[in-house]
């Protein structure tokens, strides 16, 4: 699974003041990859926390435990 480049392009344009700003193909590729890495890191860390507690399901609290350090790492 991966983010569609058009979706990431749309996300970026949400925050541009001037909608005529263009995002180069490389920048778009990099942002798309970065978003995927961010999600995979968040999900893997939360899953590892749930497994360390021998639980079958990753719940909000497992994500909240790893969240402060995750946000500081990105």
């Amino acid at each position, binding site marked *: *699974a*991966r*983010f*569609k480049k058009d*979706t990431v392009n*749309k*996300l970026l344009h*949400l925050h541009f003041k001037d909608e005529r700003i263009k995002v180069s193909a490389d920048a778009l590729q990099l942002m798309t990859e970065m*978003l*995927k890495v*961010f*999600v*995979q890191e*968040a*999900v*893997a860390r*939360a*899953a*590892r926390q*749930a*497994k360390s507690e021998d639980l*079958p*399901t*990753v*719940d*909000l609290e*497992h*994500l909240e435990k790893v*969240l402060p350090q995750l*946000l500081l790492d*990105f």
Partner: protein
Amino acid sequence: ERLKAAVHYTVGCLCQEVAEEKGIEFSKQTIAAVSEITFSQ
């Protein structure tokens, strides 16, 4: 909201991949939370 749904869908698919790889389930709320965090990131 449509853009959020598009992000949420891909986050769900990525969670599915990790779930299969690690043999663990993700609650709906966790997937929604990861999507919300990704959107704000």
